[in-house]
């Protein structure tokens, strides 16, 4: 009973011959061809998704190696270079926002900070908040969703109503209010640390119902399956069924929703920083850069273009990759 990997939807009309074999043959017939392998096989054929995946990997490497990269180009994200600024207008003197050999993506208006270095450091904040808040949401959503779906009755009612409530909650306004009343230091964190911690918790907290609903729905249909009944009739305990029988079958939708949730969270972080309730200055963040670029949309458009493109590429890469993963794990979905 260790590999009851019946993807619930895989029962009906698989598209390829080997997939049909998976679905109809017994457990023994597909030895060594787990769902993961099958999915990987499909993913490899999806060039767009692979590109997305590579970009995501590159972004992660950039974020992790931010200090190394900025050292290599010899720029610090918080150093002022006012000699590159026209004092009359506050805009960079060079063309295209001051792009040069030293400043690969130009410099910020007014203070002349290196945009490349700030974009690289900004990736840290975006990915950190994007990933960790998704982790929070996935843990909460999976646990509560599976409990609601499996136990039903009042447990289901309570959890489902809570999810409805949270989905109806104006989360952006709530986060803005919460961040503005946050103390400046808590749990040993100060300044930007507190803001990042709060953003992760709150974005994650308001994100879990999206996963929770899917998990609950899947659990509802899975718990009536024969293999669950079989386990139950053999005397398996509730928790054995929950975690050994049901959870492995929920992995696929959870992965899909996680990859879809990360870009949304990155956008939320950008929006919060844009509104001035994200990270604190001088910490670099893409949303904050976009926000300060508004004053210069006419005189220094590059300043707005660069962080905008960074956000665009990141979100697009995650979405392409997420789509590919979904298609790979869910052969019924149109490809």
């Amino acid at each position, binding site marked *: 009973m260790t590999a009851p990997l019946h993807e619930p939807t895989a029962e009906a009309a698989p598209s390829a011959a080997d997939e049909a074999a998976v679905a109809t043959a017994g457990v023994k017939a597909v030895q060594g061809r787990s769902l993961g392998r099958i999915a990987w096989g499909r993913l490899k054929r999806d060039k767009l998704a692979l590109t997305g995946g590579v970009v995501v990997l590159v972004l992660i490497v950039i974020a992790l190696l931010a200090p190394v990269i900025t050292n290599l180009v010899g720029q610090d994200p918080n150093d002022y270079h006012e000699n590159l600024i026209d004092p009359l*207008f*506050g805009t960079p003197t060079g063309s295209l926002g001051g792009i040069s050999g030293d400043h690969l993506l130009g410099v910020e208006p007014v*203070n002349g900070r290196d945009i490349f270095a700030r974009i690289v450091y900004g990736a840290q904040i975006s990915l950190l908040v994007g990933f960790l808040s998704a982790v929070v949401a996935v843990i909460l959503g999976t646990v509560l969703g599976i409990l609601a779906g499996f136990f039903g009755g009042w447990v289901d009612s309570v959890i489902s109503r809570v999810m409805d409530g949270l989905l109806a909650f104006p989360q952006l306004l709530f986060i803005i209010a919460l961040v503005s009343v946050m103390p400046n230091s808590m749990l040993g964190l100060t300044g930007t640390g507190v803001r990042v911690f709060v953003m992760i918790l709150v974005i994650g907290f308001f994100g879990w119902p999206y996963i929770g609903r899917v998990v609950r729905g899947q659990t509802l249909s899975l718990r009536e399956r024969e293999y669950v009944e079989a386990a139950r009739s053999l005397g398996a305990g509730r928790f054995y069924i929950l975690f050994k029988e049901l959870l492995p079958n929920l992995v696929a939708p959870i992965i899909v929703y996680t990859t879809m949730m990360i870009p949304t969270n990155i956008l939320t972080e950008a929006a919060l920083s844009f509104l001035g309730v994200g990270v604190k*200055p*001088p910490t670099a963040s893409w949303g904050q850069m976009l926000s300060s670029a*508004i*004053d*210069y949309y006419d*005189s220094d458009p590059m300043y707005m273009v660069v962080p905008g493109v960074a956000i665009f590429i990141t979100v697009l890469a995650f979405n392409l990759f997420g789509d590919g993963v979904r298609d790979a794990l869910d052969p019924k979905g149109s490809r």
Partner: protein
Amino acid sequence: MTTQRTSGRRKQALAAAAVVAGLLTTAACGGGNDSGDSKSGAAGFNAANNKVAQADQVKKGGTLKFVTTQDADSWDTTRGYYGFMWDFARYYSRQLLTYKTEPGAEGAKVTPDLATDMGKVSDGGKTYTFTLRDGITWEDGKPITSKDVKYGIERVWAQDVLSGGPIYLQQMLDPKGTYKGPYKDKAADHLGLKAIDTPDDKTIVFHLPTPNSDFLQVLAMVSGSPVRQDKDTKSKYGLHPFSSGPYKFQSYSPGKNLVLVRNTSWKASSDPVRKAYPDKITLDISTNQVDSDQRLINGDYDVDASQTGLGPQGRQIALKQHKANLDNPVSGFIRYAVFPQSVKPFDNIHCRKAVIYAADHVSLQTARGGPIAGGDIGTNMLPPSVAGGEGQKYDPYQIAGANKNGNADLAKQELKACGQPNGFSTTIAVRNNKSQEVATAQSLQAALKKVGINADIYQYDGSQSPGIIGSPSNVAKKKLGIIIMGWGPDFPTVQGYGIPLWSSKYILQSGNNNYALIKDKTIDGLFDQYTQTLDEAKKAQISTEINHKVMEGAYYLPFTFEKFLNIRSSRLANVYTTDAYSGYYDFVNLGLKSTK
């Protein structure tokens, strides 16, 4: 003088609104702004800054066209507090005294208007007696009497109905508030205020409980204008003030437009100040700064009434293509950082000096908008437009000199003297609604880091200032060691600027403006001495002395002596800026070159 803070806040709110309006608009810019002949008639860059431009070309007649991005708070002479409203109100109101219609510093001096002279002072500066001119009339031709002047001034006491305006007159004449205002006055003529006597229709006598050397300055504010009782519509008076000046209201739609036409009853012979060149004056209220800037540049309008300066987009176009139409006057505002002594280690003067030396003053200037839109580097705390102000000549910390890019060595020496050789951590409090404010905070943060001072930036909603930085207990609790603010004078003297900031008597539990919590007997004593001194030269000398004492205490790090960039159309003649209204153009004597 508690309303000083209101003024600062209101002016700041006005500026903030203008900035927001600028941000919200995304109108297309550039192109189509070269209207050909505009260049030929322009007087040149700074031609009207502290001097008169094209006075000889002025012709009588025509329509003078104003535009503004915000309506006045009220056109009621008792209720208006916006600087431009005071400037504009001289078209339809007269006062016993008013500011000279002269450029620059001379314009900040007062001169007789309704009164025949500067008044007779007696009783050790406690009694002022004025005689009214002949031939002064209301818009219906009836003469203006001393009782009308008294009634107009009494309205300041009716703050429950007529809120919003400056209350200096009340504070100087009746500081204890014994009079309840004309609307609650039981006397039949509603002229019960004991501090003012009107022995006959031509004579008015003021009795001050204690002398105040700035009393004449306060009389010259528009809140000292006459109001006729039978024309007083109380809170609705601002919709149609009854004119005593050369122009009267023809129509006014709040938030849309205002049209003034000639007051035919006004006699030029009765008015030594107002020239009344145009036949008609219009004021359009636009909600879109980018659009109104563009139309000013095109010459569709003659002058921006709110005088807050061009927005960032308009500034670039105008500087590149219409520089000869621009003036770049010094405003009365100083932008600065202040160190509350209640927050450690700023109780120690050496730590305060360390911050002053560590700051990169050129960077702070750039953050404020650079030398033109931001202003000159500020070196002390008395605006150059105030009597006794020395501008950059007085620079005790070499802010605009040797240390203009920061002096880390001196800063470290001061840190050692302060007992914090490795630096310390503190918090910079800054309003979040203006990008320049946050930019200065970041510049200061970056410079302080170089000497080991780690500053966290605390951003707050500017409209909440009185309860956040204006509450000394909150400042101490949140440990706001550096507060970034700006301040401008209500009337151009050290009293009108500095008393709320530096006098120990003005430390308040809420809405405090003495952020540094300065309790210096010498400074308090100098202010007392100032209010008793009637000699102008001596007053200026005391003002200078107060400024020096404040700077020696290292309570403030000045950023800039703020400047505006204002545009005048090529049609305008007799244009000049005046220190009476913080470097604004003096509206009342603007004229046109052509009556078409």
